[in-house]
């Protein structure tokens, strides 16, 4: 059989994957640099099935996702930083009501209205909270157009397995760039959702989707249940990629676009005789603390490369737990460093 190979923008690949993954509905609002997603879906869904609806705001979008997910549909939304901020209230409700769905943030530069250029400034928001209350999202960080497609499938699989929202944290560059992408994903089976509101059927317990548990004793129990689930996720779902770490003395830790840039930096460093390696966390939650801690037993130094002022570096420090020095190099506001620029700063850090 001829393989389905296409040259696509990351945003388009994600949208195409969503249709192939069998989404029942997409609710969203245009914002650069992710508008290709609603554009693609509004073009394709009328003939290929599913609901496409451009909402009046991101606030409305996320609440439509809540309603549709609560009614048992496979549903997603996408946005970029300022728009994703607007959704945070709804994300908190969705996490508490334990509704499986896929959220996408194509990260642009902030804070505020910021810039439309790529950034990783939303790492804290994605991994440490975002909305109010004690909740976590499974956070997937694609670093290629292929992964923009793959992680839609993975995202829905995990969301439905754990009954939890999954966030794909991409960025403007991965969303806008074109690469070869192969569509050969196994179809996602529809999962049973007995908890969904579909009308109180005879003999079936009625379904109530809510995040309101007014008595503190009940609310505490809900929180404990949620945290049991997060512990289970942390045990089973950590994903990362390692490049040249077997003998690495100096390791760069980077995700998404930064990992692609740092990969080349590591190649350049190796060419100069530096024993460099790369760790690329694929899940930002759960974070690969254990493996990074293990690598710190052999390596001499670690540096994160992030398109922010130093956010993931805090998690690396937690993982390393003081065993070796941990540094950070980043550019801000939508500026992307070249592999050479990263190398220069990596070497500086090594010599410090």
């Amino acid at each position, binding site marked *: 059989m001829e393989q389905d*190979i296409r*040259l696509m923008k990351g945003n388009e690949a994600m949208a195409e994957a969503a249709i192939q993954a069998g989404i029942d509905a997409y609710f969203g609002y245009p914002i*650069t*640099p992710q508008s290709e997603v609603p554009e693609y879906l509004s073009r394709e869904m009328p003939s290929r099935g599913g609901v496409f609806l451009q909402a009046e705001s991101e606030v409305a979008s996320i609440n439509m996702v809540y309603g549709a997910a609560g009614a048992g549909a496979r549903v997603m939304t996408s946005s970029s930083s300022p728009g994703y901020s607007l959704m945070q209230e709804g994300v908190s409700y969705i996490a508490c009501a334990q509704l499986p769905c896929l959220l996408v943030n194509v990260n642009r530069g902030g804070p505020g209205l910021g810039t*439309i250029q790529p950034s990783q400034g939303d790492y804290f928001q994605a991994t440490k909270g975002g909305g109010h209350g004690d909740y976590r999202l499974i956070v997937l960080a694609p670093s290629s157009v292929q992964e923009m497609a793959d992680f839609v499938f993975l995202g829905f699989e995990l969301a439905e397995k754990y009954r939890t929202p999954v966030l794909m944290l991409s960025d403007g*560059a991965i969303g*806008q*760039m*074109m*690469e*070869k992408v192969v569509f050969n994903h196994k179809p996602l089976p529809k999962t049973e959702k007995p908890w969904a509101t579909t009308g109180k059927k005879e003999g079936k317990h009625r379904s109530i989707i809510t995040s309101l548990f007014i008595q503190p004793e009940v609310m505490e129990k809900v929180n404990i249940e949620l945290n049991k689930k997060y512990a289970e996720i942390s045990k089973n779902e950590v994903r990362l990629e390692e490049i040249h770490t077997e003998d690495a003395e100096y390791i760069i830790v980077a995700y998404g*676009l930064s990992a*692609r*840039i*740092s*990969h*080349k*930096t590591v*190649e350049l460093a190796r060419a100069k005789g530096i024993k460099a390696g790369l760790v690329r966390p694929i899940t930002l939650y759960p974070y690969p603390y254990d493996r990074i801690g293990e690598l710190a037993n052999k390596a001499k130094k670690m540096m994160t490369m992030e398109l922010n002022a130093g956010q993931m570096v805090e998690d690396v420090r937690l993982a390393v737990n003081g065993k070796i020095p941990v540094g950070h190099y980043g550019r801000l506001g939508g500026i*992307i*460093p*070249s*592999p*050479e*620029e990263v190398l220069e700063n990596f070497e500086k850090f090594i010599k410090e």
Partner: protein
Amino acid sequence: MTEEIIIAGFGGQGVLSMGQTLGYASMVEGKSVTWMPSYGPEMRGGTANCITILSDEEISSPIISVFDTGIILNQPSMDKFGPKVKKGGLIVYESTTILHASDRKDIEIYAIPAAEAANQMKNTKIANMILLGAYLERKPVVGIDSIIEALKKVLPERYHHLLELNRNALLKGQELIRSVSKN
């Protein structure tokens, strides 16, 4: 083989679509490709560029700061990217509008009057294809047939009558670069 290209000019000159066409063509030939646009809020008239990387291997960074080849369509881009071409690299530029080319002696530089040639062919929109043809004559990283194959995929059916014009533009570019000497 890995070829790292910057294509730069004004928005509307077909800069981004040149890179995409090259990308498709190299995919047709089974290569890896990464196409990274530099985008701004404006739809037309601003500066535009794209980094296009073609390779027989997996491509690591889609962001690079030095290039094997620059295909340059306006003066600001010549000033900006002229110094960023690797030693021994190549610049192919649109010489109807760019008056001051890079004066580097360590790279090959070809002046192609593509806009003028496009005018003579009665379609100003194909200047980019003329430049692409010129580039591919000097560095045949993909075949002309693959470019046409790619255009068939990129262009909606209703534009397929333009494929012949595009082929002629590519051939024109090849012819032009053979007749000009590098400075």
